[in-house]
């Protein structure tokens, strides 16, 4: 029996835990602030959220070179954690800037909205930082629960509520599989700690044990659901379409990155001995995901929905990097995730600006003539579309080149052919947006652009990052490589 000991909180590196603390304290503060009356014009919630995100990112950056293992190895502070924590915080901050005006315009309760945003960011951070299946599971649930609510936040609208219900039911269903997978893994290895799983597998390779294999497969289902990999992707378009646009942007970037963070950590830390087992499966899933996502996106008329399919396709590209594995594959995945997050956030950010009040104008038709009516917005959207399509000199191009070259190096030529072909197909539908913006006359009732300074800042930030990483990719690349190093 274990002797009773006080958890050695004194020894905890508080900086390393700073993100978790800042985010949870921020969320609670927001809820408390709800009881303090404020003038209707104030945007106190957004301020507090930004501060919390800033504090979280600042605190992990403060000790970015440290390597800490907290709480009996459950919470790891390493380069990987730092990378994703900062990524999530910036994604969150951009989402806050985009929501700044949107939330008021669409009359969403901002206190709770921002509290949930912070909570789901916390969940994402936990997913990336956890070295134990328990905390990964809890982080995933924390993130998901907050997102279910955020998706259904416009509760007076049927589409939003329907999206929330579908997302919730399927998410819970997938969680069931994930949980069972964790149970089987626990049974097969006797631990839920990833490092210990790895040690166990290295000691006694029991590749044939069905518990281990089925457990691993179910784990794949759970993470596959979160990153929207085929055939676990079907919730994506509906949830993305129904959610408030800013939430869609946030979850398409953050939740996907978090899913991949967890997947990468699990695969690269715990399961390298089983590489030959999961590689073929993931290859098939990657090929399917790219193809289904891109092909289905072709005929969409709702841009939000189209981008949802596009995000599925991007999950496919990312899976190629995961399949490649190792230092190269991992850093390619990190690089691509960062790049993808901002171009996607940017695209949704532009969409969030369209429409007056709570109305949503996000069909291709609504975009007609936008390029002339608002040249900067049109230019930004064009850059995001080109970047998503992988046209130089945008970051999306650099991401794809790096990702595919890594994959070729890893000998995944068939997968690369599928991927490059898919990125050719994808340009068809990304271009439809540009064509609509620059080559079609606006309809009878041209869409109103709800400009707000904060949203403009968000557009500028995403645009700048998308272009900057296309022109100068070196910094991000080095960071991605350094970050993945800790896992191997």
């Amino acid at each position, binding site marked *: 029996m274990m002797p009773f000991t006080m958890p050695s909180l004194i020894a905890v590196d508080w900086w390393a835990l700073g993100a978790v603390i800042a985010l949870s304290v921020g969320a609670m503060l927001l809820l408390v602030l709800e009881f303090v009356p404020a003038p209707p014009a104030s945007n106190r919630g957004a301020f507090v959220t930004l501060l919390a995100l800033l504090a979280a990112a600042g605190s992990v950056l403060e000790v970015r070179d440290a390597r800490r293992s907290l709480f009996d190895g459950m919470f790891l502070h390493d380069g990987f954690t730092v990378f994703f924590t900062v990524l999530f915080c910036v994604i969150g901050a951009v989402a806050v800037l985009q929501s700044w005006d949107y939330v008021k315009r669409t009359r969403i309760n901002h206190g709770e909205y921002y509290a949930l945003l912070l909570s789901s960011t916390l969940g994402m951070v936990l997913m990336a930082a956890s070295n134990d299946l*328990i905390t990964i*599971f*809890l982080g995933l*649930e924390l993130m998901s*629960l907050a997102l*279910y*609510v955020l998706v*259904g936040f416009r*509760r*007076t*609208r*049927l*589409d939003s*509520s*329907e*999206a*929330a*219900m*579908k997302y*919730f*039911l399927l998410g*819970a*269903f997938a*969680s*069931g*599989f994930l*949980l*069972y997978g*964790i*149970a*089987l893994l*626990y*049974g097969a290895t*006797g*631990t*839920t700690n990833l490092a210990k799983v790895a040690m166990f597998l290295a000691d006694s390779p029991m590749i044939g044990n069905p518990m281990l294999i089925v457990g691993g497969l179910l784990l794949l289902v759970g993470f596959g659901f979160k990153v929207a990999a085929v055939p676990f992707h079907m919730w994506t*378009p*509906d949830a993305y*379409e*129904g959610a408030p646009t800013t939430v869609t942007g946030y979850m398409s970037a953050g939740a996907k990155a978090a899913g991949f963070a967890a997947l990468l950590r699990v695969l690269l830390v715990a399961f390298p001995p089983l590489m030959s087992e999961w590689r073929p499966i993931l290859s098939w899933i990657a090929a399917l995901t790219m193809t289904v996502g891109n092909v289905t996106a072709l005929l*969409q008329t709702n841009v939000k*929905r189209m981008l949802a399919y596009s995000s599925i396709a991007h999950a496919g590209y990312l899976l190629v990097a995961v399949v490649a594995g190792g230092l190269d594959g991992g850093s390619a995945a990190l690089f691509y995730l960062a790049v993808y997050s901002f171009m996607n956030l940017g695209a949704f950010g532009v969409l969030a600006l369209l429409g007056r009040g709570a109305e949503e104008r996000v069909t291709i038709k609504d975009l007609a003539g936008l390029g002339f009516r608002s040249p900067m917005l049109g230019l930004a959207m064009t850059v995001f579309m080109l970047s998503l399509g992988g046209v130089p000199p945008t970051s999306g191009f650099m991401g794809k080149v790096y990702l595919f070259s890594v994959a070729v190096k890893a000998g995944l030529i068939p997968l690369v052919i599928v991927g490059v072909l898919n990125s050719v197909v994808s340009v068809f539908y990304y271009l439809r947006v540009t064509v609509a913006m620059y080559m079609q006359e606006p309809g009878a009732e041209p869409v109103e652009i709800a400009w707000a300074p904060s949203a403009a800042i968000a557009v500028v930030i995403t645009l700048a990052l998308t272009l900057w990483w296309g022109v100068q990719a070196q910094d991000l690349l080095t960071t991605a490589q350094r970050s993945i190093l800790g896992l191997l």
Partner: protein
Amino acid sequence: MMHDIPLAWMLALSATVFVIGVVGVLVRRNALVIFMSIELMLNAGNLAFVAFSRALGSLDGQVFVFFVMTVAAAEVAVGLAIIVNVFRLKETIYVDEINLLKG
């Protein structure tokens, strides 16, 4: 009481319950019953955890169950709220009558 039930039996039982839960999700149209089926899946997982915990002689599995229950409780709160809200707007909780978003 001293000799244990074989692990395999417990696992078989838990797998059966899990699959019953999966089938429930697939065959029912009432969102609430679907949700109940998901609860069955979670509980099957819990059973597996406890069984493993016993077989391995470690407490981790039982602690995990504790966390799963918390998660399940949280999920139920949010999930029921969402389902109730859909019912308010649409007057139905049959999932095959709710497909505004599709394609």
